[in-house]
């Protein structure tokens, strides 16, 4: 297992290299840069100012030089300076990751806490009235795009009832920035993600439970006289959760970068919103930093999914 993990981690390095090169080239292929939009009438010669700012930030050097200059600094922890927000990139990324993690961890908890028990309940009495109703409802929930949910939730809870904020990650006042304030602000976006993905989890849990309960070893367990509850918990549930572990691992990869659209919609100051504004402002250092963070998260999530799979299913061995 140790060698397997090491090999996978080393395999990420060329992947990250190709991703950063591609993003770097694309970024510079996009028209204009962060300084082109300087339009202050008080500045007498904007062209000279733009030229000197470009020179200061090495934008007039050849592209390959800029890339290696940037990556040399990046690996030593110097992630550069944001052109648009006039702050070190690290200082921007830190709070953004924190906000995004609060949002996506909340969404994941709601999803798992409702989705899996719902699927288990459905599979206990398949094709009953309860199973049929909840299956249709979850199919409809699964089909509705999450930004539509988000708009409906904003309309209902933020505009009409006025009990939740329509946008932002932190409020104002004495409690601004506390954990409770964060949770309060993240609840609506988290709910909009959960409504879709809990339908996905309940559908898959139900299918997986039904499949396992038809297995021969379950019949054997009943045949040797085990109690219903014991068969259910020891033999059916544990095996039915194996395929779900994979989805969970993939979710972990998406915790950081999975909510770009919702963050844009809710003006929620997380990684997604940071990326959107950086792309719009040609804020090169921020784009590179968020790209790398997204990529590392996805690659680590995939690795974690594979490891979890081997942990819960002893038949799978990596050597």
């Amino acid at each position, binding site marked *: 297992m140790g060698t397997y993990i090491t090999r996978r981690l080393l395999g990420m390095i060329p*992947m990250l290299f*190709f*991703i950063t090169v*591609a*993003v770097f080239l*694309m*970024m510079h*292929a*996009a*028209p204009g840069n962060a300084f082109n939009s300087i339009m202050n009438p008080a500045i007498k010669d904007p062209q000279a100012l733009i030229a000197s700012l470009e020179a200061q930030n090495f934008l007039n050097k050849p592209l390959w030089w800029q890339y290696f200059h940037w990556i040399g600094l990046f690996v030593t922890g110097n992630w550069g300076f944001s052109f648009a927000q006039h702050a070190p990139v690290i200082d921007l990324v830190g709070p953004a990751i924190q906000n995004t993690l609060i949002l996506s961890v909340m969404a994941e908890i709601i999803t798992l806490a409702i989705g899996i028990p719902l699927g288990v309940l459905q599979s206990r009495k398949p094709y009953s009235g309860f199973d049929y109703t909840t299956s249709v409802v979850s*199919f*409809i929930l*699964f*089909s*509705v*795009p999450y*930004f*539509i949910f988000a*708009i*409906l939730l*904003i*309309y209902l809870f933020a*505009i009409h009832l006025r009990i939740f904020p*329509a946008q932002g990650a932190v409020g104002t006042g004495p409690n601004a920035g506390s954990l409770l304030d964060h949770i309060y602000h993240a609840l609506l976006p988290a709910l909009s993600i959960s409504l879709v993905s809990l339908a996905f989890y309940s559908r898959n849990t139900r299918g997986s439970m039904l499949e396992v309960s038809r297995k021969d070893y379950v019949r054997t367990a009943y045949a040797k006289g085990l109690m219903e509850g014991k068969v259910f918990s020891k033999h059916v549930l544990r095996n039915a959760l194996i395929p779900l572990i994979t989805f969970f691992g993939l979710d972990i990869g998406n915790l950081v970068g999975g909510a*770009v*659209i919702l963050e*844009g*919609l809710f003006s929620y100051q997380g990684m997604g919103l940071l*990326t*959107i504004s950086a*792309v*719009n402002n040609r804020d090169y250092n921020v*784009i590179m930093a968020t*790209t790398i963070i*997204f*990529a590392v998260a*996805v*690659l680590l999530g*995939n690795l974690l999914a594979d490891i979890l799979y081997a942990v819960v299913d002893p038949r799978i061995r990596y050597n």
Partner: protein
Amino acid sequence: MSAQVSTPNDTNIEVTSRRGRPSKSPTRMAFERFMVNKAAIISTVVLLLIVIMSIAAPLITHVSPTHQFLSSTDTPPGPGHVLGTDQSGFDLFSRDVYGGRVDLLIGFVDTVIVMTIAMVLGGLAGYYGGWIDSLVMRVCDFMFNFPFLLLIIVLSAIFNTTSVWLLILVIGLTGWPGMTRLVRSLFLNLRESEFVLASRMSGAGAFRIIFRHMVPNVMGVMVVQATFAVAGFIAAEAALAVIGFGVKPPTPSWGDVLSNSLGYFTLATEPYAWVPPAALITITILCINFIGDGLRDAFDPSFEA
């Protein structure tokens, strides 16, 4: 063994007609199973109505969706404008009706693009395995991490256009890895099956094995996946529009109409602006998913009609 064609009068003939009815092709059986699924039938009808509405848009409204009525912006529903106008003076009803063209175009064309790429790359990776497989899978991993927002900006600058086809191209170029992985896993399973071995033993080449034997076997799954993909791409268009990377005005699309009405006051006071596009997107996606679900049951031989 001469009776190839079964007639009702023939009594001692082939197995197929022993039950007293002519044999049906698998496609016909699937079609009949689909036809008893009420949700799928209703969804097909509703989806057809939406498609007809989009194609026949000029017959439904005489108002141009791209004309700005600058003297009457932000008007409520009234005689001249069925659903009023937005803050730029565009007629909302007309944009809702015409908008379906763009959304359905993106959904269908991107599905064709993604399916083609997935069948070719996934098929090659799954059939040959080895280094081809590794290469295709690494490219998939690469594409999963690709920042497509950046790609949209770069491509729109390079081609100096903000047309719908650019968006179609970007969604198509970034949307194929998931489907490719699916095709690959299907081909990996099929490769080991007896009928592929049999055709290889009888001297069939790779081309013949892939296209005559393996592709027809994955077709059922692929049709179902393609249906869900259409819904996914329509949702993607609207999602991109919501964060400002979608179809640009004056081209009408549901996502564009929706994203233009997401200001606080529009959302609070003008439901006629955002409810129709949101409902059209949701209903279209719901219908397509119900059809996909019906197709999945229909293609599943273990499903009893």
